[in-house]
């Protein structure tokens, strides 16, 4: 496992640009949505004493008041966000071709290859997403059914205990969804390796690999996932503490930075995880070696 992790880190380092591309893409798109919202609501809250409570903690009272005072703005922005999410989703499906090809290739792709793969695999990645949507629904149902077997007694309590138990219940569902995420990665790697094959063969081959390497694939995911979760939680806790403690613009700035650290790490964890999964599936020589007319053709 240690060797695999080391190879994963190497693969990630080789494709570090993907980490930046995804993080900054995410940041720019999110900022493009959030900045207009801020400009509109800033006038309402900036001089208001009632709104000042928001500097102490994330006061839902203030947010509710704002929601009522600028009801139309919030509704409009939610609608925009929904449309925006569709565009963002499609954009990511476009990039997936390049990303998975890069992570699978044993050398660095140039920009032309990257976007060539992106365009070429766009439809295939959409198919994978459609399939995965069904898989996630199924996994969620299985997770909820499994969750119902968990005894209730340890989770009973009021206040923080009840909240922790809610988190824990969600956490119990998470491994099912992670299993789905890994299947999605394997499918996309197979697609990147064999773009010309019929989708049912892609699916069959990916499932074969997924089944035979299930423990390894899941295990390697958790090696990155768990420490990153700890770091996110720490950063988010620190962010809230800093702002509450300082209650001024400096605190807000520090919180913004810490939130962005979380967002950056979230992207990093996924890239690192996928880079390592690429190393796992690369071992399956028949299934995940890029074939003729694919990435290697530009060598």
């Amino acid at each position, binding site marked *: 496992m240690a060797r695999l992790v080391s190879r994963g880190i190497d693969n990630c380092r080789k494709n570090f640009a993907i980490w930046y591309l*995804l993080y900054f893409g*995410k940041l720019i*798109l*999110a*900022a493009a*949505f*959030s900045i207009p*919202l*801020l400009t509109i*609501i*800033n006038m309402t*809250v*900036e*001089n*208001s*004493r*009632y*709104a*000042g409570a*928001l*500097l102490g*903690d*994330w*006061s*839902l*009272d*203030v947010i*509710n*008041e704002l929601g*009522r*005072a600028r009801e139309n703005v919030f509704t409009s922005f939610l609608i925009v*966000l929904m449309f925006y*999410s569709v565009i*963002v*989703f499609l954009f*990511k499906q476009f990039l997936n071709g390049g990303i998975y090809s890069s992570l699978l290739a044993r050398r660095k792709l140039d920009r032309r290859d990257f976007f060539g793969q992106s365009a070429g695999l766009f439809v295939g990645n959409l198919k994978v997403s459609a399939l995965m949507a069904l898989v996630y629904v199924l996994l969620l149902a299985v997770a909820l059914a499994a969750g119902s077997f968990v005894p209730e007694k340890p989770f*009973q309590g*009021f*206040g*923080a205990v*009840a*909240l922790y138990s*809610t988190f824990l219940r969600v956490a119990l569902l998470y491994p099912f969804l992670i299993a789905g995420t890994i299947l999605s990665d394997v499918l996309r790697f197979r697609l990147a390796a064999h773009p010309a094959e019929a989708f049912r063969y892609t699916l069959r081959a990916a499932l074969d690999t997924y089944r035979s390497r299930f423990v390894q694939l899941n295990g390697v995911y958790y090696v990155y996932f768990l420490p990153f979760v700890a770091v996110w939680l720490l950063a988010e806790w620190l962010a*809230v503490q800093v*702002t*509450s403690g300082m*209650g*001024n*613009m400096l*605190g*807000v700035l520090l919180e*913004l930075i810490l*939130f*962005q650290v*979380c*967002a950056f790490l*979230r*992207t990093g964890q*996924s*890239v690192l995880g996928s880079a390592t999964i690429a190393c796992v599936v690369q071992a399956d020589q028949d299934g995940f070696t890029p074939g003729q007319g694919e990435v290697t053709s530009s060598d």
Partner: protein
Amino acid sequence: MRIAWLRYLALIAATAGPVSGFDRVELDVTVNDSARTISGRVSVDFEPRPVELTELRFRLYANVYRNKRDSSDSGTEVDSVLIDGRDVTSRVTLDGTDFLVTLPGPVGPGVPVSADIRFVTHVPEDPGRLGYNRDQFTLAGWFPMPAPWADTGWVRIEYGENSEPAADLCDMDATIRLADTLQLIAPGIVSVEHGADTQVVRISLHPAQDVPVVIATGYEADETVCGGTTLKILFRPEHAYVLDTVRETACRTLAYMSENILPYPFDEFVVVVGGYGIGGGVELPRMILLGKPGAGLFTRFYPAMVIHEVVHQWFYGMLASDQANEPWLDESVAEFFTVKINRLMTHGRGDLFSQFGFSAGFESSHRTTSYPVQDLVPIDRPADAYGRGEYFAAVYSKGALVMMTLTRLMGAEQERQFWQEYAGRFQFTRPTRADFVSLATEYMPTGDTADVAALISTIAPLDFAIRSVSVTRDETAADSTADSARPEPQYRITVEYTARHPLGFPVDLRLEYQDGTVQDTTVTPTPGRHRLVFHHSNGPACVTIDPEYTYAIDRNLLNNSIQFAGPRGVGPRLFSGVLFLVESLFSLLWGF
């Protein structure tokens, strides 16, 4: 010999008849749990009325369930009616939940009358206040009960989805026979006699507006003494984890209300945890039923529900207002005290939820809930004049906000006196809207009944706002001090504020200066835009209208102030949070 004499006196006292002034209701019934029926007789000795009676009116609350799907065979059937021993069954008119008996002859003012009714109630399958649900009978409003009496006649109530079984207080005595295997939970149990297969439970509630009973199996009991009251909590083992919270909340609420409003007059109070099949709770005489504790216990909604139902022991139990026609008199008031007591228990902000840097207040949650109906419906309609969702938003949430506004306008000391006088004056009677308004007016800054009535009925979108603050150097003032050694700079501060739909009550306008001094000005604004000019040696730090948020019904609290000094960054913090949320959403969609 002396003891025998005392016993004789006690016997005379016990059989001498009523001295309380309440009608007397005596029940003798048998519960058939397999057939889900309760049958037997109810005898009512009516106190003399001040007017001639030609009819007696009763309420058959169980018939409200006939309108519900799958419960059409439920309800109360009347087999026979005797008036002062004479059979008048043929003179009975049944109409839904209304049951009218035309008397064979008029009964003069001041003459008592008695009725004896044989009935059978088919218990509906329903998780609410009257029904059978998962091996449990919850029985409230289950027998023919005299309709409320207004000054000169009976009150006819058309019961519907929102209305609860309204009744005047009566002295209640019940004998209930049921299978020995069942557990009967009720307040006022005097004795339980066990026979071969049956048990006979005798209940005495003097006074009460119902004989509430839960029949089930598997409840365990916890008893505590709170003040002079025995608090009995019945719970199922799987709900034992809420026991401490329920006990503490109920005890503290009993103590608060006893200390600040009126001492709790009974020696017993029963709480049934998980006894209510619908979410929420229900108030009954000397007993409350709480829904099953479930998800969401990280907020204080469950303890708040306990507080709400306990408060009803005053505003329902003792002040037995007509819930069907004037639900705000008990529900709005109970919810108002819920917010108040919950705030005391949690020491202020974030009194609904406060975890991980997030907080939410109970009052604010009521602002949010009531918002959709705030300028659509008043709080003082009859219960069934509201749609289901509207009812809770208007009567509970908006009602609590109206009560907050009313009492904050009174001021703390006046408010305390008001509630004490209101509770004291109307204890064990049925206060009406007119009673409430008339008394509240005495404690308001403006002594006009119409103003209080307008506040209770308001659907106006009240909003106070500071529109602009302009500051200029007051040259005249500077010149006037030119001769002094070091003239103080003088500022002319012009504050423009608007009042939308003010209710005719005063409101404070607070000017905080940069040197820390505070200047309050009380205005009673008319609708529209107004201007106030201040002169001061310092510039303003903040101008606020209604700085203590007295008007809880104010549509928008964000525009109540304009501040020039103080910590900044609310907008950027919101941006930071929204940005991170949107990024997280994208991460979810992207997988990265």
